Every structure is written in C-alpha cells, then in structure tokens.
C-alpha cells in the first residue's frame, strides 16, 4: 500500500516534471542574449543613408514605422499606426496612431513627432537635416501634397498622385520614426544616437563592430522575449563560420552555403530555409552589341542549365525561376516557368538564326564576393557549350556598378532583394527614369515606353485586381523581350543555434530580419 503510494507519487512527480519539460520546450521563454552575425556593421544608423545589411538589421530591430510589412502574405500590418483609412481615390491616407507609446528616450510618440520625423528629408531647417540623404528617395516624398498632424493621434497624408506602394514604403528601413528629442539633441549626428520606437533600443554602438540592443520594456506589442541582441560584423565568411562553430553567434545569414550539409548534422546548429524572395538574374545590356539582338538574349536564356547552376553554384538553395516577379508577389505569373528553361539545342538554333559568326566573344560581369564567382564560372561554361566565347569580368562592387552605370557591360549577373512585399519593388528596375544606370540599359528597348507605362500603372492603380492584371502583362512583356534572364529565386539558408526558436523565414530571406518574436530555449 505504502509502496504503491510512493510509486504513485514518483509517477506523479515524473509526469509533472515531464509536462513541465514539454511546456518549457513549447512555450516561449523570456531572457537571454542573442548574437547575430552580420556581414558588415555601418558607421551610423542614419536612415537617410545605406549602411550595408548589418545597418539594415539594426534599424529593423530598433525601428518602427507607421506600418510593418507582412512578407508572408503581402500587405501591411499595424505599426505605430493601429489602423488607417485610404480614400477611394487613393489620395488621402488617415493614420490613427496608437495611444500611450513612447520612444526609447522616453518622449511620447505623438502625431506631431511622427510628422516631424517623416518631414526630415524635405525640411532643410531641421537641425538634423543633411544634404544628400538619398535613402529617403524611397519614401515617395516628391509625391506628397501635404502631411499633417490633425490631432495628437491622427496623421493625414495627402498625395498628388495615387501611389499603391505608399503604405508599404513606410515599412522600409528608411520609414522608421525617430524621436524629435534625438533629432534636436544630436542634430546631424542623430545616426550615432538613434532613438526610435521599435522592440529593441540601442544600448551601445561601436561603428564598424557591433550594436548592442536591449529589449524595449515599453514596446507597444509587448516586450520582446530576448533581453539583449548583439548584431556584430564578420566581413569574412570563414570567420563567421568559426564564430558559429565556437558558439559565439546564434544566428546568421552570411555563412557560406557550402557548409550547410555539415552544419545540418552538427550538434548545436540548425539550418532553416528562407522564402523565395530574392531574384537572381543575368542582365543583358540591350543598348549595346551584341545583346541588342533579341535572338542572342533568348539563346542565353535557353543555354542556362539552371538545375546545375542551383545545385553546384548555390548548393541547391534556390527555386526554379519564372520571371522578374517571385512566387510570393502579387500577380505572379507561373507560365514564365516554361520560358525560363534549359534547352541547349534551341539556344544553338537561335544563334544560328542570328547569322553571327560563332564562337561569339562576349563578356560576363559580376561582383567578386559571396557565391557570384562560382555561379559566373558555371554560367560561362553553359554559354560556351552553345557557342559563345566567354570572358569573365570579375569586379569589386564599386567597379561593377560603375561599369553597369556607364552601360559598358554586356551580360552582368546580380540580384534583387525584396525590401517591401510588393511587385513594384522589382518592377521599378524597369522604369524609364533609371534605365541609363541599370544593368539592362533598357532605354534602348523599342517597348521601353510600354513597359514604363505598366510600371507607372502598377503604382498609380489602387485596385488590387487591376494591379494583378497589369503585373501579368508586365511579366509577359519582359519574357518576350528578355532584358533580364532569370537564374532562380534564392531560398537562403538561415543558420541558427539550436537554442534559437521561432525564427521568421520570410522577411529574413529578403534581408529584413525580424527578431521581435524570437526566443531562446534552455
């Protein structure tokens, strides 16, 4: 009897412990420090400038704009604005600001503070104004008729033209709201002393090295689980791998893909796969011989053995491509998958049809970092197999964009990330305005005006169904003229220590990490 009772008690205790244990494994826990390995760390977090992805990660972790982006389903989620209305003509945006929020420095988040921060790039009298804050160019300020704080908790924005992306660009890193006190106190050096209203606040910043962020107890959506986040720079890929192995970092996007097979089997590291948000492509310069010839662009398209490229060049971390827009984009057209295929015979036939002497000498330009060199060598092999004579032109980032900007490249390999879950983020590559500096120099396409009209219609149209149709037409036109030839949609490996739970794999894949809901087990 007694024994049974003891046994029963033991069992009960065991059960209790077991249930506690499983509860611990499932329920998010508070506390701990998460170290994130970035590829760089900027010298400032002034959102008017680009500071590399390390800088973007910090800004995304400390900042909050009027809205947040939903990378999984597209569209906007509440941010500092708990709700908003857009007038039927798409011109007037009324934002209702959540009450009781404060910036990291304790200043209340009011409509006036928000307006002040948003007007920073267009108000040269602001003490924090710096000439040449180019990143604000993404906010669409040129199209603002007025921006006003109607009362303490209402902001009204009036546009001159409808802009379908206006709401979502507020979720960009350059859309976060800065405390007015910080703008006054630090002036032009506010980037070294950022005070925003996001889930974490800056505790310490060592330019070029690391940013130490502490959980914001007063964050409107509740305190984040992790106490502290350190975002630290590791410019060298082998060094980042070493830090991962040594347990010095918990999470990174920047370890070499080739390490995945080994790390997947390692004791303390897990590899998650990001969503297909990044386009990899070959841009053909259509303003210059020989790729002003559509037949040659088509030949390149059919010459690429994408399965091998993805397997050998990216360790399998990409999906087969369709067009410039990705599978998660509004209006994505699946039928492009039948055009972006490997058909070397067809490529050879197209080259023959062109009547040019083979082998035709061409140049392929690319950046000298990450997986680009390996990918380029494989692409060159594919092109040589169908009759091109390829010279590889490996360039540092500055020379690459210099050469692209001057229209001196023939084929150039690059990518497009998704900073905003809207097709315009990629379609903008084909706008007439930026054609001269782009990889394709598409001002020379005879359909440039048609394409530009579609790109403009894509944002001036407010109705979603109509936009979908516009982007489908856009994709069809792009595939017909092939200024870009698609390699794949990158599904980047996200390296995390096994103690890191609840990793968001959508925004992260496009370079916009979200550490609000991450927590650490143990």
């Amino acid at each position, binding site marked *: 009897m007694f024994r049974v009772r003891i046994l029963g008690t033991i069992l009960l205790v065991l059960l209790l412990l077991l249930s506690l244990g499983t509860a611990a494994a499932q329920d998010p826990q508070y506390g701990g420090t998460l170290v994130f390995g970035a590829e760089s760390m900027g010298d400032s977090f002034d959102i008017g400038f680009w500071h590399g992805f390390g800088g973007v990660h910090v800004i995304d972790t400390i900042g909050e704009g009027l809205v947040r982006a939903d990378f999984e389903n597209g569209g906007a989620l509440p941010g500092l604005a708990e709700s908003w209305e857009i007038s039927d003509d798409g011109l007037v945006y009324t934002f209702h600001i959540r009450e009781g929020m404060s910036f990291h420095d304790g200043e209340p988040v009011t409509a006036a503070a928000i307006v002040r921060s948003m007007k920073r790039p267009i108000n040269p009298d602001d003490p924090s104004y710096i000439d040449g804050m180019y990143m604000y160019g993404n906010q669409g300020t040129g199209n603002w008729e007025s921006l006003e704080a109607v009362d303490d908790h209402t902001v009204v924005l009036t546009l001159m033209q409808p802009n379908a992306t206006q709401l979502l660009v507020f979720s960009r890193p350059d859309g976060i709201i800065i405390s007015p006190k910080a703008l006054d106190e630090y002036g032009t050096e506010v980037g070294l002393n950022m005070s925003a209203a996001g889930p974490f606040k800056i505790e310490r910043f060592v330019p070029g090295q690391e940013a130490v962020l502490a959980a914001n107890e007063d964050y409107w959506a509740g305190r984040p689980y992790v106490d502290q986040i350190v975002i630290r720079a590791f410019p060298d890929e082998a060094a980042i791998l070493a830090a991962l192995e040594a347990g010095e970092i918990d999470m990174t996007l920047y370890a070499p893909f080739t390490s995945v*097979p*080994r790390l997947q089997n390692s004791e303390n590291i897990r590899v998650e796969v990001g969503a297909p948000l990044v386009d990899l492509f070959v841009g053909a310069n259509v303003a210059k011989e020989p790729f002003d010839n559509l037949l040659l662009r088509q030949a390149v398209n059919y010459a690429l053995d994408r399965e091998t490229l993805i397997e050998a060049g990216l360790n399998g971390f990409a999906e087969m491509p369709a067009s410039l827009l990705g599978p998660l984009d509004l209006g994505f057209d699946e039928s492009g998958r039948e055009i972006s295929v490997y058909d070397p015979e067809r490529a050879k036939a197209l080259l023959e049809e062109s009547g040019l002497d083979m082998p035709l000498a061409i140049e392929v330009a690319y950046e000298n970092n990450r997986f680009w060199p*390996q990918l380029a060598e494989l692409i060159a*092999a594919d092109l040589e197999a169908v009759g091109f004579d390829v010279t590889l*032109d*490996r360039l540092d980032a500055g020379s690459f964009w210099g050469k692209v900007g001057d229209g001196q490249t023939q084929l150039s390999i690059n990518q497009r990330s998704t900073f905003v879950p809207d097709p315009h983020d990629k379609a903008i590559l084909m706008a007439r305005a930026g054609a001269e500096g782009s990889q394709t120099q598409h001002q020379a396409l005879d359909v440039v005006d048609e394409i530009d009209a579609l790109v403009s219609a894509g944002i001036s149209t407010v109705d979603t169904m109509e936009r979908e149709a516009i982007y489908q037409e856009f994709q069809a036109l792009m595939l017909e003229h092939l200024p870009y030839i698609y390699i794949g949609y990158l599904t980047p490996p996200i390296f995390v220590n096994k103690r890191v739970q609840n990793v968001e794999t959508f925004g992260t894949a496009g370079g916009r990490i979200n550490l609000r809901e991450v927590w650490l087990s143990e």
Partner: protein
Amino acid sequence: MRVDKNAGSRIGVFWRRYDIALVGSAVFIFILLITILASAVAPYDPMARNIKNRFAGPSAENAFGTDQLGRDVLSRVIHGGRPILSASFAAVFCALAAGTIIGVSGGYLGGWLDTALMRLMDVMLSFPSILLAILIVATLGLGLFNVTVAIGFSMVPVFARLARSIVITLVYEEYVVAARSLGASDPHIVWKHILPNMMPPIIVQASAMLAVAIGTASALNFIGLGVEPGTPDWGMMVAEGQRLIFDAPHVPLFPGLVITITVLSVNYMGDGLRDHLDPKLRRQEI
C-alpha cells in the same frame, strides 16, 4: 689518391656550408620545372569541371581531391605556379632595380636630390602598400600584369630606403674615402665599392620581399582583386578556398602548402647566395 680525398673534403666543406641552400635550390628548380612543363605533367585539364564530383577528398584518381566545381586540385596546383611566380618575381625584380637606383643616387649624391627622392618615397610609403595595390588593381582592372604593376610599385620605396640607408653608412667607410681621395670617379666608386657591399642585404631583402609579393598577390585575390577568374593560381586557390576550410580543407590546403615550400626554398637559396657573395661572411664560420 690524395687529390681525390682533397676534392672530396672540399665538396664536403662546401656541402656543409651550403647544405640547406643547395636543398632549397634543388626544390626550387624542381618546382620551376614542374611549372614550366605543367601541361605535360598535369594528369587532367585544370579547367575541366565535373559537377557530379565536387569536393571529393584525395583519392587515387585525384591525388589532391577536387574543388567546388569538381576540378582536379593537383592539376590546378601544377598549373597554378606560373601566374603567381612570374608576377611576384617580376614585381620584386623591377622594384629592386628601381629602388636601388633611387636609393643609391639619393644616398650617394645627397643634397636636394636626396631630399626630394626621399620625400617622394615618403609620399609613396605613407600610402599603405596594400591599399595602394588595391587602388591600382581597381583602376587598371584584374589581371596578372596589373597585379605585377601594383605589387612592384608598392615595393619600390622599401628597396630605395634600404639602399639609401646602406649607402650613407658606406660613404664613410675607409675604403670609399680612400678611393675618393685617390681621385676615383663617382660611377667607379659606386660600381666597384658601394654596390658589391650592399648586395648581401639587398639580396636578403629581395628574397624576403618575394615572400611578401606572394603574400600580397594572395591577399589581392582574397579581396577579390587578383588574377582573372578561373585561372589556376596558387594565391587565388588559397583565397577562394579559404571559405571551405571547415568543409573541404584539401581545396585551400594543398596550394597553401606549395606556396610555403616555394617561398622557403627561394629564401634558403637567397641566404646561400648572400653568404657566398659576402666576402666578410665567407671568412666567418658560423
């Protein structure tokens, strides 16, 4: 009998004095031969890819394994000496020639010429040499010749300053003062008395700078500013393979090893040459 014994012992003495220098020379000549005869010696085409057989470890087919594109590492190592060695040697030689001329003319003639030349060297030196090389390659573009120019250019002041620092002490040596008081012409003094006496340290410096040149060439590749992509080149192989150090260590390891052996052999050769050339050292038994 006596003659033979004597000759034997003389060879023995020579061997004992220069043993490691001789080994170094032999190894270096072997490496040079392999490099020159690369196409005949290499088991495979260094550019031939085999995607199915990536990252294979060393085996009977591929003695040094295969790399990220399934290319034979051994064949690439055999072919990979030519670019880096020719660039490094050419760079050091040009820098040595230019630097010695500048240093000797400045140090020997003195006056405003010396001041001007040395300030010019200061200007060049105050540019960190690796940044100077990076700027030059970024401007001229990738490629072997441009890498050679970049490395050579950045080394000129090193030789110039060294040459000058030796010359200004030699000028006060008794034999130079004596030669001058006997009315010897400046070119004669430089040629007969200064140059021979400054050669030993210059040769040591040159063999050391060769190591530096090879290191700089690898470093340029590491930053992505080296030889043309795809070219088999030791520096490039080590630099590109560095990210594989945990996953396929054989890819960067073998070219790295060959670089080390080459530089060691050249330096031992240089030391031996220096010992042989320096009349003072020949008297001294170490």
